[in-house]
Protein backbone atom coordinates (compact mmCIF):
# COMPACT_ATOMS: atom_id res chain seq x y z
CA UNK A 1 0.00 0.00 0.00
CA UNK A 2 1.67 3.21 -1.20
CA UNK A 3 -0.87 5.56 0.35
CA UNK A 4 -2.56 6.34 -2.96
CA UNK A 5 -6.27 6.79 -3.39
CA UNK A 6 -8.22 7.53 -6.55
CA UNK A 7 -11.67 9.00 -6.86
CA UNK A 8 -14.13 8.18 -8.13
CA UNK A 9 -13.49 4.46 -8.47
CA UNK A 10 -16.19 4.04 -11.08
CA UNK A 11 -17.86 6.58 -13.31
CA UNK A 12 -20.29 6.47 -16.21
CA UNK A 13 -20.69 9.64 -18.19
CA UNK A 14 -22.01 10.86 -21.51
CA UNK A 15 -20.04 11.95 -24.56
CA UNK A 16 -19.19 15.64 -24.45
CA UNK A 17 -19.28 16.07 -20.69
CA UNK A 18 -16.23 17.15 -18.68
CA UNK A 19 -14.76 14.63 -16.25
CA UNK A 20 -12.13 15.06 -13.55
CA UNK A 21 -10.36 12.16 -11.87
CA UNK A 22 -8.44 12.71 -8.66
CA UNK A 23 -5.32 11.04 -7.37
CA UNK A 24 -4.34 11.65 -3.77
CA UNK A 25 -1.14 10.53 -2.05
CA UNK A 26 -0.16 10.76 1.59
CA UNK A 27 3.62 10.22 1.38
CA UNK A 28 4.81 13.50 -0.17
CA UNK A 29 6.31 11.97 -3.33
CA UNK A 30 7.55 14.36 -5.99
CA UNK A 31 6.72 12.29 -9.09
CA UNK A 32 3.16 11.35 -9.99
CA UNK A 33 1.81 9.73 -13.17
CA UNK A 34 -1.48 9.06 -14.94
CA UNK A 35 -1.84 5.93 -17.12
CA UNK A 36 -4.67 4.38 -19.02
CA UNK A 37 -5.02 0.65 -19.57
CA UNK A 38 -6.86 -0.84 -22.52
CA UNK A 39 -7.02 -4.41 -23.82
CA UNK A 40 -4.26 -5.04 -26.32
CA UNK A 41 -2.37 -1.88 -25.39
CA UNK A 42 -1.06 -2.44 -21.91
CA UNK A 43 -0.45 0.62 -19.75
CA UNK A 44 0.17 3.90 -21.54
CA UNK A 45 1.35 7.13 -19.97
CA UNK A 46 -1.00 10.11 -20.32
CA UNK A 47 0.66 12.86 -18.29
CA UNK A 48 3.07 13.08 -15.41
CA UNK A 49 4.19 15.57 -12.80
CA UNK A 50 7.62 16.19 -11.33
CA UNK A 51 6.54 18.76 -8.78
CA UNK A 52 3.85 21.26 -7.87
CA UNK A 53 2.75 23.02 -11.06
CA UNK A 54 5.34 21.01 -13.07
CA UNK A 55 3.72 18.65 -15.54
CA UNK A 56 4.48 17.18 -18.94
CA UNK A 57 2.84 15.05 -21.59
CA UNK A 58 3.11 11.33 -22.04
CA UNK A 59 2.51 9.25 -25.15
CA UNK A 60 -1.31 9.54 -25.23
CA UNK A 61 -2.02 13.05 -23.93
CA UNK A 62 -4.45 14.28 -26.59
CA UNK A 63 -7.84 15.11 -25.05
CA UNK A 64 -6.47 15.18 -21.49
CA UNK A 65 -5.16 17.90 -19.21
CA UNK A 66 -3.70 17.73 -15.72
CA UNK A 67 -3.09 19.98 -12.77
CA UNK A 68 -1.07 19.73 -9.61
CA UNK A 69 -1.60 22.65 -7.26
CA UNK A 70 -0.33 20.80 -4.18
CA UNK A 71 2.01 17.89 -3.67
CA UNK A 72 -0.61 15.40 -2.60
CA UNK A 73 -3.13 15.85 -5.41
CA UNK A 74 -2.82 15.20 -9.14
CA UNK A 75 -5.95 15.80 -11.21
CA UNK A 76 -6.70 14.41 -14.66
CA UNK A 77 -9.36 16.20 -16.68
CA UNK A 78 -11.14 15.10 -19.81
CA UNK A 79 -12.48 18.42 -21.13
CA UNK A 80 -15.07 16.79 -23.38
CA UNK A 81 -15.24 13.03 -22.91
CA UNK A 82 -15.38 10.74 -25.94
CA UNK A 83 -16.14 7.03 -26.19
CA UNK A 84 -12.49 6.35 -27.04
CA UNK A 85 -11.62 7.51 -23.53
CA UNK A 86 -13.52 4.62 -21.99
CA UNK A 87 -10.74 2.91 -20.07
CA UNK A 88 -9.28 2.07 -16.69
CA UNK A 89 -7.16 4.92 -15.36
CA UNK A 90 -4.32 4.34 -12.93
CA UNK A 91 -2.40 6.90 -10.96
CA UNK A 92 1.12 6.09 -9.79
CA UNK A 93 3.77 7.60 -7.59
CA UNK A 94 7.51 7.10 -7.78
CA UNK A 95 8.97 6.21 -4.43
CA UNK A 96 12.38 7.78 -4.23
CA UNK A 97 13.99 5.36 -1.80
CA UNK A 98 13.30 2.31 -3.95
CA UNK A 99 13.11 4.13 -7.33
CA UNK A 100 9.98 2.18 -8.21
CA UNK A 101 6.47 3.21 -9.23
CA UNK A 102 3.49 2.11 -7.18
CA UNK A 103 -0.05 2.24 -8.43
CA UNK A 104 -3.35 3.43 -7.06
CA UNK A 105 -6.45 1.20 -7.19
CA UNK A 106 -7.68 2.58 -10.51
CA UNK A 107 -10.78 4.30 -11.85
CA UNK A 108 -13.02 2.60 -14.36
CA UNK A 109 -14.49 5.23 -16.68
CA UNK A 110 -17.22 4.49 -19.18
CA UNK A 111 -18.19 7.14 -21.73
CA UNK A 112 -21.50 6.44 -23.42
Amino acid at each position, binding site marked *: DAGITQSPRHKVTETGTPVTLRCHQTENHRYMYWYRQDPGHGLRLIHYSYGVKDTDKGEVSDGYSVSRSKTEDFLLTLESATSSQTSVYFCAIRRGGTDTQY*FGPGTRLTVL
Partner: protein
Amino acid sequence: EDKVVQSPLSLVVHEGDTVTLNCSYEVTNFRSLLWYKQEKKAPTFLFMLTSSGIEKKSGRLSSILDKKELFSILNITATQTGDSAIYLCAVEGGYSGGSNYKLTFGKGTLLTVNP
Protein backbone atom coordinates in the same frame (compact mmCIF):
# COMPACT_ATOMS: atom_id res chain seq x y z
CA GLU B 1 10.84 6.11 -29.08
CA ASP B 2 11.19 3.64 -26.20
CA LYS B 3 9.82 0.18 -26.86
CA VAL B 4 9.12 -2.93 -24.78
CA VAL B 5 8.04 -6.25 -26.27
CA GLN B 6 6.82 -9.14 -24.17
CA SER B 7 6.36 -12.74 -25.24
CA PRO B 8 4.35 -14.81 -25.26
CA LEU B 9 1.23 -12.66 -25.04
CA SER B 10 -0.63 -15.50 -23.38
CA LEU B 11 0.25 -18.84 -21.87
CA VAL B 12 -1.76 -21.69 -20.36
CA VAL B 13 -0.03 -24.20 -18.11
CA HIS B 14 -0.87 -26.81 -15.47
CA GLU B 15 -0.13 -26.45 -11.82
CA GLY B 16 3.43 -27.50 -11.07
CA ASP B 17 4.82 -26.43 -14.43
CA THR B 18 7.70 -23.98 -14.77
CA VAL B 19 7.20 -20.95 -17.00
CA THR B 20 9.53 -18.40 -18.54
CA LEU B 21 8.25 -15.00 -19.59
CA ASN B 22 10.29 -12.81 -21.89
CA CYS B 23 10.81 -9.07 -22.17
CA SER B 24 12.98 -7.28 -24.73
CA TYR B 25 13.45 -3.54 -24.82
CA GLU B 26 14.87 -0.51 -26.56
CA VAL B 27 15.20 2.60 -24.41
CA THR B 28 17.38 5.67 -24.29
CA ASN B 29 19.14 6.34 -20.99
CA PHE B 30 18.22 2.96 -19.52
CA ARG B 31 17.91 3.12 -15.78
CA SER B 32 15.99 0.02 -14.71
CA LEU B 33 13.64 -2.76 -15.75
CA LEU B 34 10.65 -3.61 -13.59
CA TRP B 35 8.26 -6.54 -13.41
CA TYR B 36 4.71 -6.21 -12.13
CA LYS B 37 1.92 -8.71 -11.49
CA GLN B 38 -1.64 -7.67 -12.23
CA GLU B 39 -4.66 -9.61 -11.12
CA LYS B 40 -8.10 -8.03 -11.37
CA LYS B 41 -6.87 -4.76 -9.93
CA ALA B 42 -3.82 -2.48 -9.94
CA PRO B 43 -0.37 -3.76 -10.91
CA THR B 44 1.74 -4.81 -7.95
CA PHE B 45 5.52 -4.52 -7.97
CA LEU B 46 7.61 -7.71 -8.18
CA PHE B 47 11.21 -6.89 -9.10
CA MET B 48 13.47 -4.09 -10.21
CA LEU B 49 16.65 -4.94 -12.12
CA THR B 50 19.43 -2.54 -12.90
CA SER B 51 22.54 -4.69 -13.37
CA SER B 52 23.25 -7.43 -15.84
CA GLY B 53 23.55 -11.01 -14.72
CA ILE B 54 22.29 -10.57 -11.18
CA GLU B 55 19.29 -12.71 -10.38
CA LYS B 56 16.54 -11.38 -8.19
CA LYS B 57 14.49 -14.00 -6.35
CA SER B 58 11.34 -14.00 -4.32
CA GLY B 59 10.07 -17.43 -3.42
CA ARG B 60 9.22 -19.28 -6.63
CA LEU B 61 9.74 -16.20 -8.80
CA SER B 62 13.08 -15.09 -10.17
CA SER B 63 14.25 -12.64 -12.80
CA ILE B 64 17.45 -11.75 -14.56
CA LEU B 65 18.53 -8.93 -16.85
CA ASP B 66 20.89 -8.98 -19.83
CA LYS B 67 21.83 -5.36 -20.62
CA LYS B 68 24.03 -6.34 -23.55
CA GLU B 69 21.27 -8.22 -25.35
CA LEU B 70 18.54 -5.90 -24.00
CA PHE B 71 16.19 -8.46 -22.48
CA SER B 72 14.95 -9.88 -19.24
CA ILE B 73 13.22 -13.10 -18.24
CA LEU B 74 10.84 -13.85 -15.40
CA ASN B 75 10.75 -17.45 -14.23
CA ILE B 76 8.04 -18.99 -12.12
CA THR B 77 8.67 -22.49 -10.81
CA ALA B 78 6.08 -24.94 -9.45
CA THR B 79 3.23 -22.74 -10.66
CA GLN B 80 0.03 -22.46 -8.64
CA THR B 81 -3.45 -21.30 -9.64
CA GLY B 82 -2.77 -18.13 -7.66
CA ASP B 83 -0.04 -17.23 -10.14
CA SER B 84 -2.70 -16.65 -12.80
CA ALA B 85 -2.39 -13.00 -13.73
CA ILE B 86 -1.04 -10.57 -16.29
CA TYR B 87 2.69 -10.04 -15.91
CA LEU B 88 3.89 -6.65 -17.03
CA CYS B 89 7.41 -5.63 -17.94
CA ALA B 90 8.40 -1.96 -17.92
CA VAL B 91 11.59 -0.04 -18.49
CA GLU B 92 12.48 3.27 -16.92
CA GLY B 93 14.48 5.93 -18.70
CA GLY B 94 16.67 8.00 -16.45
CA TYR B 95 16.49 11.68 -15.70
CA SER B 96 19.17 12.86 -18.14
CA GLY B 97 17.63 13.84 -21.44
CA GLY B 98 14.46 14.95 -19.71
CA SER B 99 12.66 11.63 -19.51
CA ASN B 100 11.76 12.25 -15.86
CA TYR B 101 11.75 8.59 -14.88
CA LYS B 102 8.95 7.60 -17.22
CA LEU B 103 7.99 3.96 -17.53
CA THR B 104 7.33 2.32 -20.87
CA PHE B 105 5.28 -0.86 -20.54
CA GLY B 106 5.00 -3.92 -22.67
CA LYS B 107 1.55 -5.30 -23.45
CA GLY B 108 1.88 -7.98 -20.83
CA THR B 109 1.76 -11.77 -20.72
CA LEU B 110 -1.52 -13.33 -19.59
CA LEU B 111 -0.64 -16.45 -17.60
CA THR B 112 -3.35 -18.96 -16.81
CA VAL B 113 -2.51 -21.81 -14.45
CA ASN B 114 -5.02 -24.66 -14.52
CA PRO B 115 -5.40 -27.08 -11.62
